[in-house]
């Protein structure tokens, strides 16, 4: 369990997945990817172990993920085979409204 900070980068320990925190809740929580706890992206850890079969839909670069309450939002910055979860609950992919190009 740890408090997440806006802008922080975390990576998976079981796949190539990597995320950045966009909106962080006040409470501490455990972020997992592929069912295993994520670590600070700066740590020298190479992915090992297995992606848990219940957490294996994957994360896609450029997609944003939110929890049910929408108090947590993360951006996937590197795709991976594991799915994201907070305190065991899978995150949902956030729909983005398509906007006209303006700049």
């Amino acid at each position, binding site marked *: 369990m740890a408090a997440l900070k806006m802008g922080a*980068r975390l990576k998976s320990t079981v796949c190539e997945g990597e995320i*950045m925190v966009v909106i962080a809740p006040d409470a501490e929580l455990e972020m997992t990817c592929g069912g295993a706890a994520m670590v600070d992206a700066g740590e020298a850890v190479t992915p090992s172990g297995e992606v848990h079969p219940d957490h294996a839909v994957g994360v896609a670069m*450029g997609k944003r993920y939110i929890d049910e309450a929408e108090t947590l939002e993360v951006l996937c910055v590197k795709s991976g085979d594991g799915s994201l979860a907070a305190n065991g609950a899978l995150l949902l992919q956030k729909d*983005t409204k398509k*906007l006209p*190009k*303006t*700049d």
Partner: protein
Amino acid sequence: MNVMMLLEMASAAFPERPAFTDGSTGASFTYQQLFDAARQRADSIRNSGAERLVKLDVSNLGTPLSLFASAWAGVPYVPLNYRLTDGEIQALLARVTPAYLVTEDSRLSALGAVTDVQAVSTGSFLDDAQHTNATAEPWAMDPEEIAVLLFTSGTTGEPKAAVLRHKHLVSYILGSVEFAGATEEDVALVCVPPYHIAGIAAIMSSVYSGRHVVQLPNFSAEAWIELARKHKVSTAFVVPTMLARIVESLEAEGAEDAGLPHLASLSYGGGKMPLSVIEKAMALFPNTDFSNAYGLTETSSTICVLGPEEHRNAAAATSEQERRRLVSVGQPLPGVEIEIRDEDGQQVPAGERGEIYVRGEQVSGEYEGRGSVTDSEGWFPTRDAGSMDADGYLFLEGRADDVIVRGGENLSPGEIEDVILTHPAVADVAVVGVPSEQWGEAVAAAVVAKAGATIDTAELQDYVKERLRSSRVPELVQVWSELPYNETGKLLRRVVRTDLAAAQS
């Protein structure tokens, strides 16, 4: 959170795709080349000990490289206006030292001699980036770090330096651009100056969507049309004065159609778009989607958009109410809130004029040395005047300071200008308040006639009188050959006021 992350993702997803091409020289960067160059220049900037990176040059490959290399190095990027006088440039430069300056050859010796300025030419900044082999430390992820310091155009008083932090710019991009949303055929033509917020936003949103940017360093309508045809440009942003010139140039060619079949979208903003210009443009570009964007430096660019469908519906509408929407700036982006407030800070009813307030993650509202001017609930007073209709469409009505106080009555120049612009002989107009012994301020107008038309000033005054209350009829009307605009299309209202006041006395 750092704008470098946008480039990191793009270069991982499509390393070989062309990212930027200098339209005047043809030199270009792929996404991978831009990423590698940013790493190397970040190392140079860190080693220099400079605390700011200043870019003083037209748009070229050094522009995106400066933005991303400074983000990587952890120093603010400060693009300066190269059209300022030498004295003005030196004064601004002195406010941002110690600085690493990237500039044109002709300025190197003079500006390199300024205390605490380390100057390199844009050419060597780009060349060295291709030959050295640095391994820069990773960029910081602190969302509070300053990404960009941007001097506002300062049409009144000394320029203020708007502070944009990484969190503001990244929030803006994540909220408004779909990652990798562009195809390999998508090409953006960027002609706004690099020191304008729209120029900075164009770099970031193109990178995040994976578009190829073609840069036009010095705008002319002919060069714009030529580059757009040559590179099969699919999307572009222009300010209203640029669109007016493009339309004129196409009309001079005798074209019924612009001959730009690849141009899928054309957006505009940065000033008031005359109804006649946008109507002509829509006829010349029948298959192009038009969008109107409203934004400010202090809000990390666009906060409100009038989309293509809304343009078409308004243009095809028969009622005045619906057609008027064509001069609206549309509705707020997701995550952006807008309110119209009166002088006491109270929200006004739909349709009434007041000052535009904005709130959202992308809103900075902060100036260097002055802190944030947002209120305790995060609302930023834009100093722009406007109104919002019952459906949430925003209409701009000039600057809040432009209001004319005549005999104790507050008059909006925009309301009077809108009426004068509907007169068949009028191409352009500026309405200002001039000193008056009787009223405090009197209404005065400078008008520009359409080609081949003549304006009868007495008849124009009657025209306004038939449509508005008599207090709004300009007491002074002058016919000018053109109105004064700055290079980004902002009307220099102060100049109009001074000249009309002198004419009156």
